[in-house]
């Protein structure tokens, strides 16, 4: 059987038990990439030679009896906003084209320690700003289920790579939904951990108080395996928390949802969104009931009605500061023939940044500026606090919350790109989770009539990844594992 079709945990087992080699797995995955990538365009850089060399190195260590780790021999792909030492890391931006970081992100070190083989870097919306991966300076990625549609964003490349079967697992980052929404669009699992669970050291910052790195996978077991590897506190990230390394073995074996209370959000009932997604949510709620859960209506008025407005003040504000360092002085694109320092700055950033990035920098600068700070930034911080408290009160009543991941299934390429506001509205169900720093898991519950993946989202309390993994494990038994996108590609 095609090795690229296996889950990560299965690959580890097959290799450990000697039924295949790391090299064979990598070659199978590279073969799949070669077949599908011309149409999907999920990758910014493919590490062909390096991954083959690494696979051979792992095979040699195996041969000498070494344990190569919990992800031993598993090919992975990383969103191209995670620093990989000596290897191009572009953030899908002209301003970092060709830039090679002098260090590895902590998650990269952890994956390497665990025996993973990095196959390459995936496409994204520039600096993780966007919901469709159309804002990349290096081309659009297509949804493997329908090449005329977007894979979602900003981690569209990472999601497409797993959905298309390049690799069983990949890493993305989620600031306002950038893992959960593409997971839903591409029919796979995506997990945004609790803020502070996974180190941000080496993740190129977009919005520091919202960003989190998380896994994509086609099985719940794989999601859990990656979280065990990367969910470790890091002294290099002062916002990373001292929490015990997770052990999901009990959660994965959860039998049913008896005794669990699952919340549904009243304000979403009243929300007008795609009936296909609505149906998918209803199916999920019914499944939860059938598994023994109590469904509890809860109100998250501030989160649903003000979360977006709050996010689109705070995230751009932080981004405007985080992206100020791209000035052509130390690294990255530097404008030629600048006549002064100010000219250097203006030209470099004008040439290097795409429109969406510029839009957000302008917005962010505005809401922080003298005379507007109180009305916008400070006010938004207060609303954020209210959202956190609202969720905290909800989790006194429920163990998790179920809601859509996105108001629609994957939309067509080009459909929303000229309407930034409409694009922003697509984040309404994912943003509040980042505002509150909670974990969120996106999963596939079926296909629409047109063959488009339909996903739903579960939100957990802070440090509630186990709860989410357990619930997803139960759901997986009913809805099945995620599939590699099946449509004719040749």
């Amino acid at each position, binding site marked *: 059987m095609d090795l690229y079709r296996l889950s990560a945990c299965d690959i580890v087992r097959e290799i450990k038990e000697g039924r295949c080699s790391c090299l064979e797995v990598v070659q199978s995955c590279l073969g799949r990439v070669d077949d599908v990538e011309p149409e999907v365009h999920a990758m910014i850089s493919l590490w062909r030679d390096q991954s083959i060399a690494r696979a051979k190195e792992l095979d040699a260590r195996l041969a000498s009896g070494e344990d190569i780790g919990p992800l031993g021999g598993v090919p992975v792909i990383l969103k191209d906003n*995670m*620093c990989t030492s000596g290897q191009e*890391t572009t*953030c899908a931006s002209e301003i*970092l084209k060709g*830039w090679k*970081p*002098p*260090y590895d*992100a902590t998650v990269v070190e952890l994956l390497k320690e665990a025996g993973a083989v990095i196959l390459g870097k995936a496409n994204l919306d520039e600096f993780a700003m966007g919901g469709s991966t159309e804002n990349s300076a290096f081309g659009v990625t297509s949804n493997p289920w329908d090449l005329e549609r977007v894979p979602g964003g900003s981690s569209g490349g990472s999601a497409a790579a797993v959905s298309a079967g390049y690799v069983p697992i990949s890493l993305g980052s989620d600031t306002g939904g950038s893992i959960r929404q593409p997971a839903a669009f591409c029919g796979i699992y995506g997990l945004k951990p609790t803020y502070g669970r996974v180190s*941000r*050291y*080496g*993740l*190129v*910052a977009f*919005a*520091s*108080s919202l960003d989190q790195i998380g896994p994509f996978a086609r099985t719940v077991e794989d999601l859990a395996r990656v979280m065990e590897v990367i969910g470790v506190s890091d*002294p*290099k*990230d*002062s*916002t990373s928390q001292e929490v015990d390394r997770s052990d999901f073995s009990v959660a994965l074996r959860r039998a049913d949802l008896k005794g669990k209370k699952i919340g549904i959000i009243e304000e979403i009932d009243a929300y007008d969104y795609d009936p296909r997604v609505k149906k998918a949510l209803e199916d999920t709620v019914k499944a939860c009931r059938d598994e023994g859960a109590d469904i509890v209506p809860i109100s998250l008025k501030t989160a649903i009605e003000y979360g977006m407005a709050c996010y689109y003040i705070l995230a751009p*504000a*932080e981004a*405007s*500061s985080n992206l*100020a*360092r791209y*000035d052509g*002085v*130390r*690294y990255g694109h530097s404008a030629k023939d600048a006549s002064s*320092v*100010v000219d250097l*700055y203006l030209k470099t950033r004008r040439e290097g940044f795409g429109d969406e990035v510029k839009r957000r920098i302008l917005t962010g*600068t505005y809401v*922080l*500026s*003298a005379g507007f*700070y109180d009305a916008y*930034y400070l006010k938004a911080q207060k609303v954020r606090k209210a959202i956190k408290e609202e969720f905290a009160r909800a989790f006194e009543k429920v163990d998790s919350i179920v809601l859509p991941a996105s108001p629609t299934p994957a939309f067509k390429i080009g459909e929303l790109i000229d309407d930034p506001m409409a694009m922003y509205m697509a984040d309404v169900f994912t943003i509040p989770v980042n505002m509150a720093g909670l974990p969120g898991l996106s999963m596939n519950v079926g296909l629409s009539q047109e063959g488009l993946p339909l996903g739903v989202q579960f939100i957990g309390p802070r440090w509630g990844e186990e709860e989410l993994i357990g619930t997803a494990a139960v759901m997986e038994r009913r809805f099945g594992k995620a599939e590699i996108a099946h449509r004719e590609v040749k």
Partner: protein
Amino acid sequence: MSLTFTTVIGLEIHVQLATKTKLFCGCSTDYIGAVPNTNVCPLCTGQPGTLPVLNERAVELGTRAGLALGCRINKVTRFDRKNYFYPDLPKAYQISEFYVPLAEKGSLTLLGDDGEPHRVGITRLHLEEDAGKLVHGASDGRIVGSTQSFVDYNRSSVPLAEIVSDPDITSPRMAKDYVSTVRQMVRYLGVSDGDMEKGSMRVDANISLKVSDGRWGDRVEIKNMNSLKALERALEYEIERQSGILSDGGRIKQETRNWDDSAGVTSSSRSKEESNDYRYFTEPDLPPLVLSQDFIDDIARSLPELPWEKKARYEVEFALPADDIAVLTEHRELAQFFEDCVSYGSTPSRASNWVRTEVLRVLNEGDGDLATFPIRPKSLSALLKLVEDKKISTTAAKEVFESMIPGVDLDRAMEICGVTAGSLTGDALVGVVRSVIASNEDVVDIIKSGQDKKDKKKKFLQGQIMKEARGQADPKEVSALIDSELSL
């Protein structure tokens, strides 16, 4: 009608904290003389994806300084980002404490212009990271006329404490005194080298004048004063400049001016910081800094006696002249040396003299490091005791002292100098007297012939004998022996 002016000065002092590593990364802070861009890492050069980790020692030192200044230490503080673009600022923001500083509302008491004690309030002390250094290509090193500039990030992210005074300073003399006191304090505390020439202490001044007819001149900021002298001169110049304008009925332009030490004038600066909106917001990459009462108490307990406390105590305990006290207490190590001598039994005045004249002289001739000075207080004290007890003369003691400098102990040094403790008397003295008489036959003849009016020649012999005796003979006994030997 003649106008008079009241001077209102506030000072901002930046001190580089004496930590081994930078404020947010593990790079060395030892940038003086280092090859450019060698004490750097991805963090302090603002590479994408890097995150700050707070240096605890910097917080300790900042707290120390805050407590010494009588400030309240804020138990919960947060860092903030000060955003602006400049090539020496690698992240395009400086991590500082804007909204809630580490310490606030302290004070220093200085000598007022009227001779009475004058309180200068300390508004705040906060931590922040330093920027890199720009070097401009023009021959005079200034930005005007340069076609190229270079940036060195060795200094980037070095920890600073910024100390802001209330506008309570009323004259250039007091400003100098204030800075000098703060400098002495940070050195006493081990918080900073406090070296203005080397740049580990920088001072900016804000100065305005109040006019006797009720007008207020706008505040002017003065930068680039690199010594205490420059500070005083710059402020004196500004007072003249501003009072001139105000006397003519003009208005003071609120601006930043740079002091030019060689030209002796301030000039308007087209500074990067003018009309900048820093868009301060709380640093999301650092959690709140929470200090326990225990942490603060431990540091408070570990504070050494502060320079002004020591001065006051010396006045009462040792009754030494003010100038001498000033010299002794200038440096904590020297003061400690002096106090140790006293505790080993030396009288304060003798110890004071010797420390100020002999010890300090040798230190100034050498590398000035009291820690490696071979003569320890105990040994010096023992030497001084011999002088106290009149067992050796001061002159002899100074010779012995010199011999001890290379690291020789007291007894050996005395041997080398041929000095014996205790008097030269009786037969031993007779021997010396006879030997001197024998070597000075012509002088003896003059005395014997009765031509020694006013005893000049006898005094000469006496002097020679005392010299031979290394001052250890009793002058009266010598005189009597000369008389008896010469049968006078």
